[in-house]
């Protein structure tokens, strides 16, 4: 009994001491709501030095919280409970958030740096006139491969994935839209197809890919490709850039039949209590210097034209990650399919997963 009481007291004392330490470490205590800006973003998706610079410049204290999937983030913002001032969701979620009235319109007059952005990335169907969102990073979906092991294949066509020589050589990202979209694209259909015949065809086509699939995986795909666990992977350009910077033997290609053009945009959720500060933050991030520094840190493609001028020309002129006009024309942005078709896509993907066993 004595031992139990002793243990209890020890735990309470340690916890108390630790809590006191956080108080000492946390300088944010005692600030009022006006001075705080809560940012909700993916982990490691911003240069922390920029946050410090922003705090210094404006005197606003930044709280940085992170999420790991768009959908989980959406649930949090829907439920409220935290006053998120800035969030960085992907485009298809922005469309949903807009429809569900979860966003605060952005006042363009407060964001003079908007002029820095490439107009190609503005005024897109998921958010006409960028009323609610400002591009943060963008990219494509394509194939990362190791030229040493694929016998001259350049993945100019999705068809190359079906090459019988690549038995158990292909990694796919664990994401229904990307995989089903690839199936549709390989048949020259739109990756937003709502045509049941086209989808059935795509499923049949994907099932024939099963012998080539090594695994369907998530973010760990970067580590695995860098380590040459497989020689071919279907993934996003952002992760591809990470892989290429780690393993110089790798290459990235976007097949010509077409692919997805994706965005992560900055939005101001309805939960915001510091709309003014949120605008200041967006404008700060859109400056040429901040844009360049951030793109340099994160390694994804930036929509900021002015920033490109400040960046390493070798990066900026790399057509794999900054494709030219001609290739851009083959890319399609995801449309919100609505619940029924999201369900159909996912069931299709689930059946495909069961087929690879």
């Amino acid at each position, binding site marked *: *009994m004595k*031992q*139990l009481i002793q*243990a*209890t007291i020890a*735990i*309470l004392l*340690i*916890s108390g001491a*630790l*809590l006191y*330490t*956080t108080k000492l*470490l*946390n300088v*944010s205590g005692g600030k009022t709501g006006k001075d705080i800006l*809560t940012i909700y973003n*993916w*982990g*490691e*998706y911003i240069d922390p030095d920029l946050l410090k610079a922003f705090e210094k410049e404006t005197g606003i204290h930044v*709280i*940085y*919280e*992170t*999420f*790991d999937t768009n959908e*989980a983030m959406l*649930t*949090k913002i829907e*439920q*409220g*409970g*935290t*006053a998120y001032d800035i969030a960085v969701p992907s485009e298809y979620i922005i469309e949903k958030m807009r429809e569900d009235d979860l966003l605060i319109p952005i006042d363009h007059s407060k964001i003079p740096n908007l002029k820095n952005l490439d107009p190609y990335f503005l005024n897109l169907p998921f958010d006409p006139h960028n009323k609610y969102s400002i591009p943060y990073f963008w990219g494509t979906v394509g194939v990362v491969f190791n030229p040493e092991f694929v016998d001259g294949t350049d993945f100019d066509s999705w068809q190359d994935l079906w090459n019988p020589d690549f038995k158990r050589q292909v990694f796919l990202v664990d994401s229904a839209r990307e995989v089903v979209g690839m199936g549709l694209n390989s048949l020259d259909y739109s990756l937003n197809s709502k045509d049941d015949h086209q989808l059935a065809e795509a499923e049949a086509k994907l099932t024939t890919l099963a012998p080539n699939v090594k695994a369907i995986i*998530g*973010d*760990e795909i*970067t*580590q695995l490709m*860098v*380590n040459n666990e497989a020689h071919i992977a279907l993934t996003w350009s*952002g*992760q591809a850039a*990470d892989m290429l910077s*780690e*393993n110089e033997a790798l290459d990235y290609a976007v097949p010509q039949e077409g692919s997805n053009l994706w965005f992560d945009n900055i939005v101001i959720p309805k939960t915001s209590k510091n709309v003014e500060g949120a605008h200041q933050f967006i404008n700060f991030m859109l400056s040429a210097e901040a844009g360049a520094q951030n793109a340099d840190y*994160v390694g994804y493609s930036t929509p900021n034209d002015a920033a490109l001028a400040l960046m390493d020309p070798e990066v900026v002129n790399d057509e794999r990650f900054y494709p030219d006009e001609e290739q851009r024309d083959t890319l399609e942005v995801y449309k919100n399919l609505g619940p029924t078709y999201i369900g159909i896509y996912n069931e299709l993907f689930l059946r495909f997963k069961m087929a690879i066993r």
Partner: protein
Amino acid sequence: MKKLSLSAKIYLAIVFIVLYAPIFYLIMYSFNSGGTMNTFDSFTLEHYQAVFEDTRLLVILINTVVVALLSALVSTIIGVFGAIGIVSVKKARLRNTLLSLNNVLIVSPDVIIGASFLILFTMIGIKLGFASVLIAHIAFSVPIVVLMVLPKLLEMNTSLIDAAQDLGASKRDILTRVILPYIKPGIFAGFFLALTYSLDDFAVTFFVTGNGFSTLSVEIYSMARAGISLTVNAISGLVFLVTIIVVVGYYFVTSKTKRKVGDRA
């Protein structure tokens, strides 16, 4: 006591090597100048330096430990009394119902627990942050404590309690002098596994946290897309080292004092 045979020692050694292999792998890479866990470039201490410069990460680490300790403590208390209560129920059907309810949270996937707790907390109006995370962790750790304490309670001899009663012990005495000492191993097992649950949890914490409060798990999972930084490896290495030192140190200090007490007696 019989000595362990050589083959038994080898068996245990293999179990321990396997259990610790991934941890040493992680720690090895915390000295990697390459910046990722992919290839080992050269030795560096920069990630350890980064740990001490990153106050945000340190605060998160402390939060994680505090939540784990407190939630394990409270859930152990609730769980122990719950288990005593369950055993005292005589009707087999009611007892089985209670036990089934007990295990609902063990079988429910984390997203469901997280989402339903989030809805619950926003409904009641608990501010998301330290308190909500702590309550949630207590909630999902209770069942494991119950399951650890239960077998000890069941094997307890009724005659022990009868004897105590006959000797005129009060209910309080029976609890503190007979029952609790007997089930102590189960209590500690429950506490340590509750710690494990709390330290490992990502999904539930993610949903119920907010207002700047975060734990190490949430931080690590959200880094996955853009790559987990080796600072996390370094911090895990440090935590591991401190834990080992504390546990081993505490063990020898207490066993020594015990022996001294024993000598005097």
